[in-house]
């Protein structure tokens, strides 16, 4: 039975929606109980298509200009969604079509308790009130395996982690047993292990309730685990659709093939780089040595009171970096990996030894041998400065004027990162995300550094852009002999660029060594858990197991010094922290 039938859908924005079309002719059918994955990059129109299905697109300034969306309702009537009035849509939303969104942190109302928002769903569609609604909310949260439900109902959204919130979102959507669930990038903002949990939950619930699902994602790797059918979108059009296996194994369209092959997919160390400078055994002198780096943030209770404790954000991190080498630092959010990077740049107060031996032995060495590229190219470029001012800033900071030599270097670097050299007068918003990140890279290279710290440098980019930026980084590394400290949560990306990998957990390195070795034969239990959570196109319809363990608090009493760690030498360049096996 066809639940939803979309044909020739066109959606536009602005005062003249015909001119501002974002979706230009999408058609698909969805049977009851089926899962359709819509895959595409940002701007492909996948989210707008989804928002059109329950007409939420109206509130974002969009208008359906053409086409039809026919929804078969629970009572068998067929509703033409494009023509329905707001009152009818209000009855459809929630009751028949549920929806969950990308950012769980912002998708729940910050001033209402979790319980109040859960109960609302029951009140609206099941007519429950008071204690009955509360009990129903409790049941629903139990269903998504939230521990300690009674307390959680009284909590506000900011008191819960992202993963928890996404479970709350799912629970509140499932409250009304919708026949269709639209999940718009539900795991993109989450850590990889949490993503695995949410995916598992969705799969399980789908099985239980028999509802249909539209799963929207940019990550084709994620699709493999959950979808029955796949639709690939590009520039507002569906370029390919078909059964899961068909699309993944025999892609017809170039774009699908590009997504499947050009984009980094995790390969358990098989795709790791083999050109590391240590490969021959005769490593050059390190360009950066970090010894026992410690970052602690005091936690104060009152203004004049003594610190009640310290957050041990980074705890005795040590590593070194030789020219031409990439050290990948992987870990989940809150693991302290970014804090460590910021400490190396002097942005946060730290203890420990930072040595830059050999940095000034190179010709034309810079006064600032370590430079950084930040995660979000939208946030790390001042939107009100021109490209020229942006590139000039590091030079000005050293007290130099902008002379012809500097301008020549700007032109050279812009050309090198594949940006037009005549763009000096333009502003960041005129560039795409990938171009902006190239700009950031060019800026970091202005002072001819020996080490570049790349903090989640490609995470905010679309998958196909990611691949090209990674290639550029590798090229630049070879050309300038740069050492990279590459920080990322994305195992697939790290695999492509790192020679060596350090796995960080709770502020400490738990495993470090040659990339291929660490990824193919992880020793530490955390590394293993991390790797097993990475989605993979080859793992179809996998059932993830639910795990509700969380990272413990990093708050320690003042003056606390953790015991020295024991290390296990696993391979020639592969060490892991010893664990209690008990």
């Amino acid at each position, binding site marked *: 039975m066809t639940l939803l039938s979309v044909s020739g859908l066109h959606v536009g924005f602005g005062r003249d929606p015909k001119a501002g079309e974002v979706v230009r002719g999408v058609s698909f059918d969805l049977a009851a109980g089926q899962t359709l994955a819509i895959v595409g990059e940002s701007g492909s129109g996948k989210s707008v298509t989804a928002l059109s299905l329950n007409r939420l697109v109206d509130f974002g300034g969009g208008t359906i200009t053409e086409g039809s969306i026919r929804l078969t309702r629970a009572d068998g009537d067929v509703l033409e969604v494009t023509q329905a009035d707001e009152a009818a849509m209000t009855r459809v939303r929630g009751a028949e079509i549920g929806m969950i969104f990308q950012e769980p942190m912002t998708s729940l109302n910050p001033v209402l308790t979790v319980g109040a928002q859960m109960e609302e769903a029951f009140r609206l569609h099941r007519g429950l009130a008071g204690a009955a609604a509360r009990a129903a909310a409790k049941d629903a949260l139990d269903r998504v395996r939230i521990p300690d439900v009674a307390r959680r109902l009284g909590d506000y959204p900011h008191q819960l982690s992202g993963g928890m919130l996404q479970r709350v979102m799912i629970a509140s959507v499932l409250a009304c047993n919708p026949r269709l669930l639209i999940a718009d990038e539900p795991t993109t903002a989450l850590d990889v292990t949490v993503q695995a949990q949410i995916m598992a939950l969705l799969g399980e619930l789908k099985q239980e309730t028999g509802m249909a699902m539209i799963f929207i994602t940019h990550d084709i790797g994620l699709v493999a685990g959950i979808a029955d059918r796949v639709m690939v979108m590009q520039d507002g059009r569906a370029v390919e659709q078909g059964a899961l296996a068909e699309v993944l194994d025999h892609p017809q369209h170039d774009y699908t093939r590009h997504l499947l092959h050009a984009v980094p997919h995790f390969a358990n160390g098989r795709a790791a780089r083999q050109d590391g400078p240590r490969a021959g055994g005769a490593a050059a002198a390190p360009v950066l040595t970090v010894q026992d780096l410690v970052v602690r943030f005091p936690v104060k209770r009152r203004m004049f009171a003594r610190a009640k404790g310290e957050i041990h954000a980074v705890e005795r991190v040590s590593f070194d970096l030789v020219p031409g080498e990439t050290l990948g630092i992987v870990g989940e959010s809150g693991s302290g990996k970014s804090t460590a990077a910021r400490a190396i740049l002097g942005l946060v107060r730290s203890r420990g030894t930072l040595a830059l031996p050999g940095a000034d032995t190179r010709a034309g060495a810079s006064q*600032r041998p370590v*430079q*950084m590229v930040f995660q*979000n190219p939208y946030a790390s470029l*001042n939107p*009100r400065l021109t490209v020229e001012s942006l590139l000039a800033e590091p030079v000005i*900071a050293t007290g130099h004027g902008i002379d012809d030599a500097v301008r020549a270097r700007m032109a050279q670097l812009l050309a090198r990162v594949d940006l037009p050299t005549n763009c000096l007068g333009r502003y960041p918003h005129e560039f795409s995300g990938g171009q902006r990140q190239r700009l950031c890279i060019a800026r970091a290279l202005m002072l001819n550094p020996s080490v570049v710290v790349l903090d989640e440098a490609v995470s905010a980019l679309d998958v196909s852009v990611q691949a090209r930026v990674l290639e550029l980084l590798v090229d630049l590394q070879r050309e300038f002999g740069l050492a990279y400290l590459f920080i990322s949560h994305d195992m697939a990306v790290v695999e492509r660029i790192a020679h060596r990998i350090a796995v960080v957990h709770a502020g400490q390195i738990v495993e470090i060594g040659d990339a291929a070795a660490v990824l193919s034969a992880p020793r530490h239990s955390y590394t293993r858990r991390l790797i097993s959570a990475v989605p993979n196109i080859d793992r179809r319809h996998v059932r993830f197991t639910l795990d509700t363990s969380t990272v413990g608090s990093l708050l320690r009493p003042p003056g606390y010094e953790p015991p020295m760690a024991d290390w296990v030498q696993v391979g020639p360049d592969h060490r892991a922290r010893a664990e209690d096996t008990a």
Partner: protein
Amino acid sequence: MIRAIFHHPSGRIGGGIVLVYLVLAGLGALGLTPHDPLMQYRLDRLHPPGAAYWLGTDLFGRDIASRLMVGIGQSFFVAFLSVAAAASVGTVLGLTAAWVGRLWDGVVMRSMDVLLAFPAILLALLIVAIMGPGTWTSVLAIAFVYMPIFTRVVRGPALSLKTREFVDAARTFGSSTRYILTRHLLLNIVAPLTVQVTLALAWALLTEAGLSFLGLGTQPPAPSLGLMLSDSRNLMETAPWLMIAPGVTIMIGILGFNLLGDALRDILDPKTRGGRA
């Protein structure tokens, strides 16, 4: 930018009004008024609006329309200058308070609290005592009254900009504090600042009227909208046009600035600029 304003529905109206006012003030400044704004036509005192005097004459037989044209210039001069002074000093204080933090932040913000809690009239009297009455006194008094508001308006966004990645990036380059404050913080506060400025201009016009009550504002016979309005109060029944003309002029002027401010907020705000999230 100009095109963007005139594409915005409220920007079109607001921009239009401000443009018309600028033209009127320009004509007034060049002396291109229907009559001499200071000329007292003794026989035509309190003449109702008509063909000879479009908006009537005042107690002295001076042409209201001509006085309004010059008054727009005078009032807007005071408003612009005082708001500019308040905005620049307030911005410097707000920026440095946010950046330096700690003791300086406390000193600046508490001083602003002191100023906010201080009666504006006493402040104006004090400034008059030091400088003597006149245009510059009103400018200074109004500037003092609005400075704390600008300090607050700047400090808030500056605190959040301080933690943005591009500021971190600047610090990794070792950029000077002055460079960071001006290029990274200030440049990005321009949008809320512009909005606040357009709103403050409206208040300044009214405050100038209030100061005229105490003889602290524009000195006669120079016309200012506020002075014309406050001079008209006891003639409200005898010659209502005396109140209506400057009243409506102030009202439409403020309307223009507010609409323009709304439009600028929409245009300068990156969240609404793209149209779609």
